[in-house]
Structure formats: structure tokens, C-alpha cells
């Protein structure tokens, strides 16, 4: 069911042969998703899904139409093309039309591992059975989700650009709750190589957090020094890369906008310990070989030592502004040119602060300042005199993520590890460190566990 490179080429060539248009881009994709969900120390649901899809975008006399289908037989592909052409026939002229790309050279990334694609049902069941047994042994109630996904597909343009990619991903998250419902722990990790997914660590961390979180106390909300574990950083920073959009900044509606149509490009907007880049060939976090618009992805640096180095231009906006389109981002790597510290170092150096393991339900409140609200979840601790003093009940926060990473507010940076935002459930990941931040705004308490 998964498309090979040859099949991808054959299908996209066939779609193009059905089209009568000035310009065309055709794509096909395929995936296999296999998942197991457990809760209450019990199996909940489990399933496999295979799927395929095709899409086409046509331009006729500068007018654009797009259509898709998940049936790849000739009749369905012809029907898809007819729908796209019918839309183009009556559409207004596409003012942002850019000719499809001619042949490009892609440097392959290595994000596909055969053993991840072929994980057996019995091996997975055994691994989950072991986690449930560990939860029972420790007197906690376990829930979690294991998923493997394989994707393969590509595209072909009328101007001669063909690309094909395939990738794998396996993720496991576990929540452990004490039987009295007063404490909860969570841990999530993912990898493209199932051999590198440490299922034992995931279960142990979730159980440890639940057990150590018992007896949580209440303290007043306010501005605190915080230590954010990598999961908490991933939850907050998951969408940060999207903010670096040049068009929004130049149109005056972004955190990177300045009065008079200027932008913060080149400004030291972040702490000097902050460098953020995208690297398609990172060994731990392979990105896509293809960036926006199909241009070959390259390593790009968004923030270097605190300075905004890149705002991203799509092909249309780059042409309008006389710039080159940006070959990324295709992933997010947080790095520091200074020294790194462990979470233990961060705790030991803290007179009074709060350790946060995870954030939840984060939603933007003010685009002008990249501010969000959300809550802590599954593990918060008070730090006093260099030690964890006791667990805390949860807080709501209101915080600007750019101010959080602003000059002087980043006190320590950990070593980055592969971690994904928990609202994404392990479907995506970044390389992010633990952070010690001077000030973070908790605005109210939540009794939720």
C-alpha cells in the first residue's frame, strides 16, 4: 500500500497526462498508521489504517483550481483533474501565482527505518502490557498511547520537478495517576527509529512523577523563577517557528513588526543564550528534504545568539520584495553557544523557584506580543534553597514566549533532546533543552490533577 518512488513517479505522470492546463503540480501520498491506546491499566482501543491520496493544482490562463481524492484508479484521478479544471475555469486570476519549479536537486534526509515501519502487533502488545504491569506494581493508574506511522509520497510539476520522500515515526506517551486522583505524571517521547524509543524510561518517568507529586500544596500565583523541563519547553515553543513569517512582519501584524513597516530583523530580541535553527539533515531530528513551495531545504538560522537572523519569505513574497525564498524551516533546533547545564544544576542554583514538567491547553492571547495562556499539568514542584521542597498544585499562566526568551531572562540552558509538544501527541518533535528562566507569570491556581 505504501508508494515506492517508481509508483509515485508513475501516478504523478499519469495525473499530468490527464491535465490540459498551462501549469500543473500533482502529488500522491500514502501512509500506514498503527496505534494502541490504554487507560485504567487496561487496553482501550487499537487499530491499523492504510490510506492513499492524490492532489492536483492547475492554472489555466492564470486561474487556479485544486482538487484531491483518495482513490488512485484512473477514473478517480480523471475525475479529480476535471474538478480542478472546472474550478480553474471560473476562478478569478491567481494574483500570487508562481510558476511551478523546474528540476531541483534534493539532498536526501534519513528519516525512514524499516523496523519502525514493521513493528509487530505482539511486540507492541507486550511492551504496553509491561507498562501496565509496572503501573499496577507501583499502585498507579496508567493510561497512554503508542503509535507508529509510515508515510511515503511525492510530487511532480509540469516544469519538470519530481521529488519523493518517505519517513517513519513511533511515539509513546504514558500518564500515571495515583489511585486517590491527587497526583499525576506524564512522559512522552518519539523517534523515527523504534530501537531508539526508550519505552522503559517513558513509563518510569511518568510513574516517578505521579509518586513524587503526592501531597501537593498551594502557593500564591505570581511571577516566579522557573525551570522548564524539555517537555514544557516543547509545549510552549511548538509554534514559534511559524512566527518568523516575513510577510506578516512587513504587513505590520506580527511580534516581529516595528512601526513604519519595519521589522525586528537584525535586532537582539532574545537572550544571547538563544540560537534557533532548522537543519534538514540533523541525525536525531531529520526534517524534510523539501521546504516551502518545493524548494530544496537548507540549514537556516532564525535566531543567532539572541539576534533575529532570518524572517521567512515564501516564493511569492520573496519575488515581491526582491528576496530569495527561504529554504526552511523544516524542523526546530534550540541550541546555545554558551555552556549547558543539567536540570539538577538548575535546581541547585535556585533559591526559590518552580519546576514545571508540562504545560497544557496553550492558546494565544495577544499576537502583538506572542502572548499565550495555558496551564501546568502532571507535575509542578517548588524549589527552595537549591532543593525540591514539595509538589505544588497547578497554575494558569499568561506569558509572552518572546519575552520569556528575552535578553536577561534566560539564566541557564540544558542540552537539547528530541521532544514533541504534548497537544500533538508525539506526531512531531523538535530538539529542545530544559531552560531556567528568571521570570514567568503564573496568574491563577487550578485544582485540576
Amino acid at each position, binding site marked *: 500500500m505504501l508508494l515506492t518512488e517508481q509508483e509515485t513517479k508513475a501516478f504523478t505522470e499519469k495525473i499530468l497526462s490527464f491535465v490540459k492546463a498551462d501549469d500543473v503540480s500533482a502529488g500522491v501520498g500514502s501512509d500506514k498508521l498503527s496505534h494502541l491506546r490504554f487507560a485504567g491499566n487496561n487496553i482501550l482501543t487499537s487499530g491499523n*489504517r492504510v490510506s492513499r491520496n492524490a492532489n492536483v493544482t492547475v492554472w489555466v490562463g492564470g486561474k487556479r483550481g485544486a482538487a484531491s481524492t483518495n482513490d488512485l484508479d484512473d477514473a478517480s484521478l480523471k475525475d479529480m483533474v476535471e474538478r480542478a479544471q472546472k474550478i480553474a475555469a*471560473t476562478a478569478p486570476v491567481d494574483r500570487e501565482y508562481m510558476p511551478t519549479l523546474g528540476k531541483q536537486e534534493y539532498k536526501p534526509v534519513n528519516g525512514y527505518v524499516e523496523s519502525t515501519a514493521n513493528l509487530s502487533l505482539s511486540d507492541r502488545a507486550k511492551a*504496553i502490557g509491561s507498562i501496565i504491569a509496572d503501573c499496577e506494581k507501583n499502585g498507579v493508574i496508567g493510561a497512554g498511547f503508542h503509535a507508529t506511522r509510515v508515510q511515503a509520497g511525492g510530487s511532480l510539476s509540469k516544469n519538470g520537478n519530481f521529488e519523493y520522500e518517505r519517513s517513519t515515526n513511533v511515539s509513546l506517551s504514558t500518564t500515571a495517576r495515583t489511585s486517590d486522583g491527587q497526583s499525576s505524571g506524564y512522559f512522552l517521547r518519539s523517534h523515527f527509529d523504534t530501537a531508539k524509543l526508550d519505552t522503559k524510561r517513558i513509563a518510569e518517568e511518568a510513574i516517578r512523577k505521579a509518586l513524587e507529586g503526592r501531597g501537593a500544596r498551594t502557593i500564591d500565583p505570581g511571577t516566579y523563577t522557573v525551570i522548564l523541563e524539555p517537555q514544557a519547553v516543547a509545549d510552549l515553543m511548538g509554534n514559534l517557528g511559524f512566527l518568523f513569517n516575513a510577510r506578516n512582519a512587513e504587513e505590520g501584524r506580527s511580534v516581529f513588526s516595528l512601526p513604519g513597516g519595519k521589522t525586528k530583523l537584525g535586532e537582539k530580541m532574545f537572550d544571547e543564550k538563544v540560537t534557533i535553527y532548522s537543519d534538514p539533515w540533523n541525525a536525531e531530528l531529520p526534517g524534510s528534504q523539501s521546504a516551502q513551495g518545493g524548494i530544496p531545504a537548507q540549514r537556516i538560522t532564525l535566531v543567532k545568539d539572541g539576534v533575529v537572523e532570518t524572517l521567512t519569505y515564501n516564493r511569492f513574497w520573496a519575488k515581491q520584495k526582491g528576496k530569495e525564498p527561504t529554504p526552511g524551516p523544516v524542523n526546530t533546533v534550540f541550541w546555545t553557544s554558551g555552556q549547558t547545564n543539567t536540570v539538577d544544576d538548575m535546581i541547585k542554583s535556585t533559591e526559590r523557584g518552580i519546576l514545571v514538567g508540562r504545560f497544557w491547553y496553550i492558546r494565544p492571547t495577544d499576537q502583538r506580543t506572542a502572548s499565550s*495562556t495555558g496551564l501546568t499539568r502532571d507535575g509542578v514542584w517548588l524549589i527552595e534553597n537549591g532543593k525540591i521542597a514539595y509538589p505544588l498544585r497547578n497554575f494558569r499562566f*499568561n506569558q*509572552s514566549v518572546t519575552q520569556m526568551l528575552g535578553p536577561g531572562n534566560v539564566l541557564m540552558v540544558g542540552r537539547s533532546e528530541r521532544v514533541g509538544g504534548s497537544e500533538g501527541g508525539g506526531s512531531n518533535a523538535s530538539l529542545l533543552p530544559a531552560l531556567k528562566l528568571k521570570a514567568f507569570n503564573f496568574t491563577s491556581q*487550578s485544582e*485540576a490533577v
Partner: protein
Amino acid sequence: MNFSRREFVKTAGVAFGAAAVLPSWVYDAHAAGEALFNVNKDALADAALATAKRLGASYADIRINRYRLEAVNTRERQVLNVSSGQNFGFGVRVLVNGTWGFAASPLVTAEEVQRVTKEAVEIAKANAPYQKKKIDLVPTPKVVGTWKTPLERDPFEVPADEKTTSLLKINEAALGVAGVNFVNSSMAWVNEQKYLATSDGSRIEQHLVRGNPSFSATAVNRTTGDFQAVNSLREAQSIGYEYMSKHDWAAEAKTAAEHAVMKLTAPSVKPGKYDLILHPSHLFLTIHESVGHPTELDRALLWEANYAGTSFLTPDKTGKLQFGSKIVNFVADRTQKLGLASVGWDDEGVPGQEWNLVKDGVFVDWQTTRDLAKVVGRNKSYGCLHADSWGSVPFPRMPNVSLKPAAGNVSQDDLVAGVENGILIYGRGSYSIDQQRYNFQFGGQTFWEIKNGKVGGMLRDVAYQSRTTDFWGSCDGLGGQSTYEIPGSFNDGKGEPGQSNAVSHGCPVARFRNINVLNTASSPNAGQMEDDH
């Protein structure tokens, strides 16, 4: 406003065997590509269910579904995208040794149905050794029937140029307002054609349509670097293309644009305690988050503990917990006209129905499915099982959860008249709530100061934060039927793998006393406010 089930285009009857003669498939005969989806669903279903039974399944169902989507996106005076998509496939769910198994494929052929059914059974059998408590189902009557969303004009028959023209007219109305720099508009239309066959003998075909037009107008002050946006207040509904003519979208866009400009110079709210008047265009999302989700029984039983979360409500609180003030009554209703979650039957053959969740302020009942009902000792399901695709495992999803209006003819002005120091809020803004649904914070689109019983000027940077039962306990005024609207959410996420559900929340305008209001404009101490406890 509740809609009688008799008014739906529906035929139904009790089937006494799987071989009962079915109505023809409810596909739109004029739809593009119709012939491509003309498979013998009954024969495929018979094969799947027989195979599942032979391999040891105590229960099985198969859904053969086709989904169509049309989307149009524009900005200012240009069309960004018009797309048409369709998706066809089937999913087989089996219960073997008290363990669920599921498999799905887009190849709707006899051979693939056999393969997928066997795969679903293999999955269930692989996991069964670790199933500590076996899954079981409450019974539901066999049924053969069809159901369609009532609509006047099929959006999939409306030409693309009519859709783009309609959106560009909205944009033009907004751009005609001095000071407005940007406008985005879009519409999305979904058509679900669903076939369900269960090993209980049910055979059901449903044809669901829903639409989600929306826009956003943005004003930028280039001198100060400030920008403010106002989004449309109308929300998604189960309705045909007549939605575009029944509401004056262009007039609303002009008003929204004027409000976006006004917002640039509106005073920033002073944090503190205020009485709130919440318009239905805003209140529906507060209901969704603080009432809809905590009354999902799967959350209370920890089934969502790893993702969406659990609930502050627990089975022992049923019929006892004071959820809100005595005027607060919430009904769950899968038959409500225009309701996004309205159906003839759910995805395991349980009829759409209406029941109380909160009555006279007391929490009285749950949202259930056949397996959940069994866990808590009920003998029937309320019909809340739903899958967002043929390829997704059906699981508990929210019905329309609606707040009943006041019996009398109470207007918004009547409620405002009783407020000395308050804020009137329209539209959905930022929304966030904890994993047990206690602590929430909601923004909106436009905010208006209320002083001494009168609505005054606009405010900005407003969000309110409260605790669910405190908030609903502070509700001391509801509008009457004339203020009632049925806004809804097109995409409500839940579950693992993540699924999207469309759901509506009918409500009147309502008044809440003494609620914490924050200022969301960021400063080094952004959002600092009094604790709410």
C-alpha cells in the same frame, strides 16, 4: 428552538434481519464522480460481519463512508485557494474476547474487506492477553433507516465562482472601511455519506452536510506598530448553502471592520471584578469547554487521562453536585435543528435523542456510548459514538449541549439594565481550560463597557478567568427565546489518534456576576491578577 425529530427527513423502522430491503444509497445523484462510489455495501457488510463472527468476534460493525470537502480561501481582492476533496473507504470494528480491534482501508473491494476484517481480529487477539477488564456493550434495538441533514441548497452544487464572488464581496465590504488594511475570508463545506452495518442487524445510511463561512478584518496603525483584528461572529452550522443568503455576511464584515479600527484606540480594560453579559456568539464556547467536556463519561472514567484529560465530575456526583444556579438547565441533544452534532443515529446504531445534563442547576447525567453505559450499570446508551473518518476508531464524542433560555421574553437590554459595572462580550476569542475543566480563561472579539445599566464604549485586551461551578453559580439572568442562537465549533479535537468533531451549543444571552477580568496586553507583568479562589 428545539427541533422535533418528526420534522427531520427521516424514515426508520425496526429490522428483523440483516437481509431487510434497504432504501437506495443517499448519495446526491448529481454529485461529480458519483458512479465511482457505487459499491454493493450490503454485500461487503455481510461478508465483513460473517468473517468477524467466524473468527470469534462477539460484536462487529463496518462503516463504509464517503466524505466530500470544498474549501475557498481569499484575502483582500484575491482568491488564494479553491479546493475540492473526496475521501472514500471503510473501517471494521470487532470485539473479540472483550477487546476492541479496528482496521481500515480506502480500497472498498470484497478482497480488502476480508483482509481488513481479519486484521482487526488479529489486533484484538494480540492485545487481549493484557485486557484486564473486558469490554461489553449495552443492547440497542436493530434499526434500518436513512437520515439527511435538512437543507435548501446543496453547497456541492453551487459553482465555485459563486462562492468566490460571495467571499470577495465580504472582503470588499470590510476594505471599504477607512483604516482596515487586511481581510481574510473563507468557507468550508463538508458532506458525509455514511453507511453503518452492525452484527446486531442494523443497516443505516446518513447524509450529513455542514458549512463554516468566516472572515477576519485587521486594522494596522503603522505609526504605533499596533494592530487589531475582529473575526466574524457567526459560526458553523448543519445547513446548506442557504446560509450565505440567510445572513448578511457583507454587512457583518463592514461592522467588524469598523470595530477593528475602533479597537486600535479603545481603552485597555482595567483588571478586576465585573459583571459579564455574554452574547451567544461568545457563550457557546464557554459552554463547550466548561459543560460539554466535563459531562463526557469517558473522561470521568479516566479513558482520556493521557490526552484531553479527566473531569471534575465523577459518577458519585450524579444527581448531587450543584453545577450552577437554579436557572441553569443544560440539555444534550443530537436532534437539534442546525446542530452540528445532530444525526439520525450514532456510529453504533443508537438513535439521536435529547436528555438533561444539568437540571435546575444540579448535575444529573452523562454523555454515554454502549461500552461506557455498561461500565456504569446503565441499560442503554445516549448515542454519543462518533468517528471522524472511515479510518478512525469510533469513540465517545460530544452531542450538541445547549443552555435553555428563560421562559419569559427577556431581552439583552433587560439583562444589561441590571448591571452597574460590567462588560458585554461578543465572539469567540482565545480559550483555555484545564484538564479537569475547573479553571478556564476566555477572550472574545469585541468588548463593551457597561455602566449603570447602559452599554457604553468599546474596551480591549479583555479576558475573564473563573472556575466552572463558581461561574455557572454566578449566572443570575438568561435571555428569552428571542435571544437564542445555535453557534458551533467545526473542529473539536479529542482522542488518540486525534479526531475532530463538529458540535453546536445553543444558548441565549446570559448574565454572570462578579467575575475576574484580566488585561491580556503583555507587559513584564502581563496578566497579573487576583487569585480567583
